[in-house]
């Protein structure tokens, strides 16, 4: 009996392990700004925590900040001034001196996993290889071979003085979120609209969850589960002021891509809903 249970546990662990290695959202990477709004004349330093965890704003894995970028109100991109990597999070600081809205991002690089079946029992296996690399590594009698690209955008918006629009524009690559409600205008009890794009086109069917800070200290997640409509829009109303983590995923086909057949791309946006 005991052995049997142990066996079940081991199997579960194996499945969980596989899921972690394959799905980018297993430990979602997110960014947490110290402030979202700057009113100080001449600007101010802000600090950012970056980690990957299952808890909303609970630090866990030391996701790096080396790829962090700040899209400035005039469209140029800057790098953080200081980056530190700890055991359970990384940190970077940036001095915001220009008026307007900035997009802060810690985007990953695309990763490629190839899924295939092999052996007499059609066991599903995974290989960390893209379409160009996979043939050299796949066993000769592999079946149902498919390569998936995984990509995650981890982002947040900072506004110094008067909000501006240019940093909200999309770049037309994979899954992206365009705030229709300006991130500096998200207020408790007022409706928010965001629009999703996939390769630059409005995308329906994007699955989204939105969770408010503080899950450690309440019994239920109280997350909002949403799906984008025909125009790629989601609408929701944050009931309480606070910091929120939005996670969106879309799985799509890739046409004429030399490296992958399908994609799974994510947007992890941290935003605040201010008091009325």
């Amino acid at each position: 009996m005991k052995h049997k249970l142990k066996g079940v546990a081991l199997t579960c662990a194996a499945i969980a392990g596989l899921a972690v290695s394959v799905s980018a959202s297993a430990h979602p990477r997110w960014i947490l700004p110290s402030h979202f709004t700057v009113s100080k004349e001449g600007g101010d330093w802000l600090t950012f925590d970056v980690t990957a965890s299952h808890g909303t704003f609970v630090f866990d894995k030391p996701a790096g900040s080396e790829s962090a970028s700040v899209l400035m109100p005039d469209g140029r991109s800057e790098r953080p001034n200081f980056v530190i990597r700890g055991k359970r999070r990384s940190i970077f600081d940036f001095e915001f001196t220009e008026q307007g809205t900035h997009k802060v991002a810690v985007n990953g690089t695309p990763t490629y996993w190839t899924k295939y079946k092999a052996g007499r029992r059609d066991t599903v296996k995974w290989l960390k290889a893209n379409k160009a690399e996979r043939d050299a590594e796949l066993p000769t009698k592999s079946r149902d071979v498919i390569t998936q690209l995984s990509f995650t955008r981890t982002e947040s918006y900072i506004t110094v003085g008067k909000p501006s629009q240019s940093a909200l524009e999309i770049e037309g690559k994979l899954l992206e979120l365009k705030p229709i409600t300006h991130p500096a205008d998200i207020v408790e009890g007022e409706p928010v609209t965001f629009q999703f794009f996939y390769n630059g086109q409005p995308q329906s069917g994007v699955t989204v969850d939105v969770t408010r800070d503080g899950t450690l200290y309440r019994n239920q997640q109280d997350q909002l589960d949403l799906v984008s409509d025909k125009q790629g829009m989601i609408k929701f109303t944050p009931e309480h002021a606070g910091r929120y983590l939005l996670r969106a995923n879309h799985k799509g086909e890739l046409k004429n891509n030399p490296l992958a057949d399908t994609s799974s791309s994510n947007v992890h946006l941290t935003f605040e809903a201010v008091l009325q």
Partner: protein
Amino acid sequence: MKSGKLLALAALLASTAISANSAALPGNAQMDVNFTLPKIDTSMYARPYVAIWIEDQNRRPVRTLELWVGKDEWLKDLRSWWRKVGRNDKALVDGVTSATRPAGHYRFVWDGKDDKGNRVEQGSYTFLAEVVREHGGRNLIRQKIELGTQGFSHRIAATEETGTVTLDYKIN
């Protein structure tokens, strides 16, 4: 055709309704504001930041009457006023800013003019006062007001960070 005529009629009616309301306030109309910052017994008392302003019926800011603040770093803590007014118009902020004040009674008068110095039109408005105190709390009080040819008095109950506030609209 028929619906077209009806629409035109409706548009005409709507425009006359607006023009009937769009008369400016009577030249001698003004609103007296009696405002109180309560004495708060606490070990860490800092004078609060205070913003007092008027919004029109579309919740757009019309006039900032008072702004009692210290370092601009903390202006954003006047969350509502910062979002609606402060962040959008630096010149206005500079023009209206004064120092923080101690607990006590304050009286000031709104002359019925907007931020640009024009007399506002008659209609529905909202009086707002936002008070936020370091180490302390924040209160945002609102009072709907009807500015026309009739005087009125409103009494806004005290909150944690505000004492009783009275508004007296007079046409002398």
